[in-house]
Each structure stands twice: as C-alpha cells, then as structure tokens.
C-alpha cells in the first residue's frame, strides 16, 4: 500500500516528556565505547560548562526512535514496517543533550517520494525542552521497499 503523500508538511502533537537520566547517558556511552569523562562524570561535564553529564552525539535517537512510532503506527500514513530500511540520518544540534533535560519530540513529515518501486519517507523531529528551548533537530529517511 503506497504512503499517503498528503501527509507531507503534517506535524504530530508533541510526545510525552522524556526525562534524560544520568545513568541512561552513562549506559548509552558505555554501549558505544565512549569513554570521555564528560559522558560519565558530572564534574568533568561541568568543567566544560554543562550542568551534568553530556550525551554522545547520536544519543537523541533513543528518544526520536520511540517518538517515530507515532508515524510508523499511524494507519492513515500507511508505513509497512516489515519493509522498512533505514536510509539517512542527520542531527543538527543547538546544544548537546545533558542529564536532567526534560525533552519532547515534535515529528513532521518533511517529504515523501517514490522511486523504482520504493518509497522514501523523510521525517524531521524537533527535540526541545518542556520549556520550549530547542536542543536538536533530527532528520531520518526511511525506505519502504516495494513488493518485489
């Protein structure tokens, strides 16, 4: 079933706030082998001018992947998740995510194209604090493979 192209430009309501925990940042940093003290030690992070431990650059995907279920599971948009392949991923940071942040995600369908029997869905997720401060914008392009 093709994607509904009329969804281009549509934004979804903000997701429920995500509380960024110090231990979650440490766990994520450990999982990717990121040993810089600023990811683990609040004092080291403060020395760099941050209020608490700093998340590695791709950490926001923990939030945005969960937030993207809003689109993936929207039957009106029509994504068949069993045919999805991750195409592109991009982050543009206003500042790094730090422990103590309370973040919401706003998903927008930025583009839908069809090529060679496949469909390409580009979403933009604006991650900001519950106070409205922008933190990072995240673009994700997925490929929904056509029936062979």
């Amino acid at each position, binding site marked *: 079933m093709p994607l509904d192209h009329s969804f281009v430009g549509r934004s979804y309501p903000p997701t429920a706030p995500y509380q960024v925990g110090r231990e979650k940042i440490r766990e994520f940093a450990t999982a990717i082998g990121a040993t810089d003290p600023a990811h683990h030690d609040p004092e080291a992070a403060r020395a*760099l001018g941050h209020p608490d431990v*700093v998340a590695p*650059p791709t950490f926001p995907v923990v939030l945005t992947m969960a937030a993207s279920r809003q689109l993936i599971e929207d039957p009106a948009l029509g994504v068949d998740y069993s045919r999805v392949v991750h195409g592109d991923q991009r982050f543009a940071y206003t500042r790094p995510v730090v422990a103590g942040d309370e973040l919401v995600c706003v998903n927008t369908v930025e583009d839908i194209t069809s090529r060679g029997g496949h469909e390409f869905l580009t979403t933009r997720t604006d991650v900001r604090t519950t106070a409205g401060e922008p933190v990072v914008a995240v*673009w994700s392009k997925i490929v929904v493979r056509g029936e062979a």
Partner: protein
Amino acid sequence: MELPTQTFRVTRADLVRYAGASGDFNPIHWSDRIATKVGLPGVIAHGMFTMALVGRAVTAWAGAPDAVVEYGVRFTRPVVVPDDEEGTEIVVTAVVREVTEDGLTRLDVTATCLGEKVLSQARATVRTAA
C-alpha cells in the same frame, strides 16, 4: 588534510549491549534465523550503532565530546557481524573539507568494513577548539 584513521571492533556482544542501551530490539541485529529470513547474510549491526562509532571518531578528532554541531550519514551497506570472538571491524577516516571563519570545521568521513564503504555522504561539522 587527512585525519588519523580510527578502527572499531564490533562483536555480537556489542550489538546486544547497544540494543539494550538504545531500545532498538529489531531481531535482525541479534537473530541469524530472522536476519537470513529477510534476505540478509546474517546478523547485521544497527545502522545507528555504526553511526555512533563514527561519531566517536568525530569527537576524538575534534578533541571534545560536545563539539559536534551537525552530523549526518547515509546507510549504504549492512555491517555483517559474525558470531565469533573477532566479530568485524569498522575503519573510519576523514578529510577536512572546510574550516570556516566562525570556528567550524567540516569533515567528509569514510567508514568501511572489509574494504567496502558502509556509509555515504557522511559529514560532520564540529566546533573547532578555541
């Protein structure tokens, strides 16, 4: 200018740990049975795990864990991770494409596994240390 090559070993245990930390439990990253059923040669690394390792290379080159301003990649080829002690290896290189007047450095990054590029259009912008 070319930056020093960095290599990252990836084993099945790393994928399990990343699945737990990231919340991405897609079985193609831990089950050979399911991976081969969908036409893959075997279990593959999460694209976002590869991107995270390349991100480590970028922050190491920048010399600061909080220096990344923009970072994007295209996933072009899966990283197959065999079920053995050695796993596989991702080799990351980069060239400096541009240094701007306002203190930003733009990098073109290359990531390969077994000699094949696994990312394309991998670019990062980092704040240059003052």
